[in-house]
């Protein structure tokens, strides 16, 4: 896909997510919107191998959204790839429906379980190590939040992946600088994430996480000559795409009022939805 098409796809994903969440009043829009471009670049930018209609294809790349609040952002994409029926999107969180507020192993195309932070990198390292030992060429992409990097388990896994030269493991840090109570820098500084990952033995790239041009350039490093695993620090804006949510911690799990809902609809170009 060309950049223009990817941008259209990103708008489509925001619209689908907005409708899905607003219909039920459940879900975390700002966390999901912060990594929309990352996911679109991965799934449609030609870097991750996805096999339409075949969620269990052995050669697929494993994509794990470890920051579970944003895992709902995979749902419209997975439906688009024919992994389950699109009608599931309207049944989101309903009893009998497939899709919940956090992604789950039962959902075709979801490679793990999320909702508790700090598990995805270790699990991804497991996938990557198995692939390496089986001489299989698929890769594992794990999206973590910067707030998730508070979890010590992330660093245990980072050390492990570097020691084992898991170059088939790619971590993308969705770095929106916010956690529930406010700005990470003010609450408990994460320090210089770039040097931290580098000192753990990773290749590090730093990009604007909403720029397809920069994301695609960073993804093109995947599979380079380096033996090291790659981390892409993607600088993002939490709530990106909805002006009144952007960069505001209090919107983490708040559902808009009717007036705000109309404003959101207008900003996303949604005329009406049921």
């Amino acid at each position, binding site marked *: 896909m060309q950049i223009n098409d990817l941008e259209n796809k990103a708008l489509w994903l925001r619209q689908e997510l907005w409708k899905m969440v607003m219909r039920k009043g459940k879900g975390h829009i700002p966390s999901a919107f912060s990594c929309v471009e990352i996911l679109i670049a991965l799934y449609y930018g030609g870097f991750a191998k996805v096999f339409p209609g075949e969620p269990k294809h052995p050669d697929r790349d494993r994509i794990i959204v470890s920051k579970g609040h944003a895992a709902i952002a995979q749902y419209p994409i997975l439906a688009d790839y024919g992994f389950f029926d699109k009608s599931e999107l309207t049944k989101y969180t309903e009893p009998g429906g497939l899709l919940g507020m956090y992604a789950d192993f039962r959902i075709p195309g979801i490679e*793990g*379980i999320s909702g508790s932070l700090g598990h995805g990198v270790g699990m991804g390292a*497991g996938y990557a*190590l*198995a*692939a390496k030992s089986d001489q299989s060429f698929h890769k594992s992409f794990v999206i973590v939040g910067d707030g998730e990097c508070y979890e010590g388990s992330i660093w245990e896994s980072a*050390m492990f992946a570097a020691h084992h030269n898991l170059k088939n493991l790619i971590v993308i840090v969705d770095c929106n600088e916010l956690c529930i109570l406010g700005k990470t820098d003010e609450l408990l500084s994460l320090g210089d994430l770039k040097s931290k990952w580098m000192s753990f033995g990773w290749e590090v790239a730093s990009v604007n996480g909403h720029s397809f041009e920069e994301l695609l350039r960073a993804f093109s490093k995947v599979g380079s000559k380096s033996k090291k695993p790659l981390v892409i620090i993607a600088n993002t804006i939490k709530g990106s795409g909805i002006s009144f949510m952007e960069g505001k911690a209090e919107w983490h799990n708040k559902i808009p009022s009717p007036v705000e809902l109309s404003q959101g609809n207008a900003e996303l170009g949604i005329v009406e939805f049921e």
Partner: protein
Amino acid sequence: MLDNDPEKKKLMRDVVIDQIYNAATTDRNIVFISADFGAQSLDKFRNELPDQFIHAGISEQNMVDLSSGLAISGKQVFLYAMAPFITARCYEQIKCSLSAMNLPVTLIGVGVGLGYDHSTLTHFTPEDIACMRALNGIEILSPSDQKSAEVIAANAVTNPAFRYLRLERNAHDQIYNDEFINCLDTGFYEISRGDRVAIVSYGALLHKVIEARDDLKKAGLEVGVIDLYRVKRINVHKLFEHLSSYKSLLTVEEHILDGGFGGAILEALADNGLQMKVRRLGLSDGFTVVNGDRDQLHKFYGVDTGDIISAVMELEKN
């Protein structure tokens, strides 16, 4: 006669790892991961099957998360560490990355209960049965000698499932010969039949229970002894069939009484509408930590042979 020559007593961990090693030589999907915990048999495994051994570092959280990715990719994974560190230390990871997806990973914990006697509380697991048995879908197995450990390990290798294997730190006298294999389905072994009181126990304390039984026999009392080695997935129906002829029951555990082994049996009794006088021996809430070897600790916590005998005598009075 059972052979209790100390020279021939192998550690449970060696017996178990040898079983895994034997299978791993022909199945390269078997992966053994240690969080910096060793064994003589593991040295052989590491040397001869280096591609199937992973040192996780002293990083139990990553070890468990990693195993989930490996297991989903078709590997049969065995995780190995000292018991407190492979249970409570990484409980969250076990819950989310293994239990939630019911992955066939075996957790092997060494030195359960008060096994690391002089190391005291950080190395004890007075809570592991309670916390592990609350995990959805897990099976918990607690062998009491090398033969039962061998049979349980061989079965775990052949039938992959989400399991916690509780191993004793030290070598204990042999209780079983090959007959142990016959109780894999039931999950318990009736060691002896008695008149009015039955004692149900497992692991290291089973040896003290057998001692107590022998002493009581000299005093003319025949007590029943059951080794309920499968602590979770109790075969309630079969167990109560065996217990139905007794008037009362004594449970003996090297664990806090809250949510533990005796508690599990009480729950099963209540759920099945069965009434029986029950007394539980174990560590009480508020227990304090003291120095001492395991026998001294058993006395201090009231789970030693003498305590078992007194408890049986009490029950006999009723």
